[in-house]
């Protein structure tokens, strides 16, 4: 009986001690107050593989990077000016962080402001909610991808289509 107890304790300890090589993970908060308008699939059934969040207001809310950590952000401005309903595929403004594991976190479609520049920060603003690039209305597209494939597990279980979110709301966890 004593041995069984010891064995059981050993198993519990083995399960409880985290692996040394455990990956680091980051919580992601909503970039601004709004509603999740699309997740893995559009209502048409087409694959989307990312989160779309919209407040319905153009050039009003500042878009924060959302990831709860100090990270170096690379901001690419492809379209200057206030656009709310799309400027064509591939012309979206983008903020991204490329992780050393080959995965990249991206925010698309924001309007360029004086905050749209490369820097290292924790949830800083990189522009205003808008519709640059391939968009039919103001929103932010939040994507985590690897080798050209969009990952969906990072937000599954954290948010769903139709959920109202604010900047304190966790919309996913990336690792």
């Amino acid at each position: 009986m004593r041995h069984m107890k010891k064995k059981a304790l050993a198993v519990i300890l083995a399960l409880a001690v985290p692996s040394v090589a455990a990956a680091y993970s980051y919580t992601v908060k909503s970039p601004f107050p709004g509603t999740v308008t699309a997740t893995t699939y559009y209502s048409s059934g087409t694959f989307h593989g990312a989160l779309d969040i919209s407040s319905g207001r153009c050039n009003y809310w500042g878009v924060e990077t959302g990831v709860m950590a100090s990270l170096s952000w690379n901001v690419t401005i492809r379209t200057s000016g206030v656009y709310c309903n799309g400027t064509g595929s591939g012309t979206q403004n983008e903020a991204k962080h490329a992780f050393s594991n080959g995965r990249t976190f991206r925010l698309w479609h924001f309007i360029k402001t004086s905050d749209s520049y490369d820097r290292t920060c924790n949830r800083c603003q990189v522009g205003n909610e808008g519709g640059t690039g391939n968009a039919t209305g103001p929103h932010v597209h939040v994507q985590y991808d690897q080798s050209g494939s969009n990952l969906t597990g990072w937000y599954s279980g954290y948010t769903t289509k139709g959920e109202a979110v604010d900047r304190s709301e966790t919309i996913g966890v990336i690792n």
Partner: protein
Amino acid sequence: MPRFLQGLRAFGGLTLLLASQPAWSTSPAALPALRAESCSVRGLMDQLREGLRSNSKAYRDYLNAVLREAAVSLPSGELHAAFDRETDPAMVEQLAAALVARSEREAEKDAIQAVARRALEDRDPSVRAATVRAMRRTGALEKTGDMYERLMRDGSPEVRMEAAQNLIEDNQYVYSAHHGPATDLAVNAATASTDPKVTARILESLDTRKMGPEAGQKLLGMLGHESADVRRSAALALGSVPAAQMGPAREALVGMYRGERDAGVRKALVQGIAELGFADAVPELRKLRSVDPAMAPEIDAWIRALESGVQEWGLLLREKQRLQQVR
């Protein structure tokens, strides 16, 4: 009061009226009078001081996290004054972390300068080390000028090692090894250090894939260092240099292998050569096999791993380890 409520009371930045007693409890006359309580930096510090004595690491971590989140809405003047007054290293670290958080969240961009100043100038090495820790995994290396090079020359080994750890973790977690200037700064700091342990610590953990040519030259120079630890870590760091620097790095590692006497350094040289060439390194490794018979099993393991066709360095390292274990 449960701890989580104490935390909320301390960090909420709100004036909380303690919850009134439910109707089924004892009569109001028997209870202490309820008082409104204002939260302030001083009150927060009292809660922190008490909380940091807790045996629960989870609770201490919770306090740290809540403080960093609340830092944005704390009154700046009071926070700076409290930081300047405080002398207990544990509390200094917390207050410094709050100031750094204000800077990182862009609530007060220059707040980190006060922390950097103290990291360089405080008389107590434990306080200097604590403030350096508070800047870990932040953008401090972009925002603090030559602080890290100066910290490398700090009189306290503890401070030097904490600074080294910052450079490693900032490059790994903040810049994800994709920011050349951050890598260059780490290499410059490592080469500026007169403490071989610190130099070796930084270089052995550094991913140099975005390193600039000037820092690359400095790294090559470290191969001639008198400390075997530094030579070993420089050889490992050279394994991941950008494509433009691979040729000179490979020549340097191969050339050095023949004259090197330290077995640990030789292992690192072989690993650096393998990482630079992947399968293309096999002919070179075969040539080096005869230089030192004692290294033949190590080189054979690398050759077998490289010939397996695995294309990712992390997987290659694992494959090589597996092959050595099943031998």
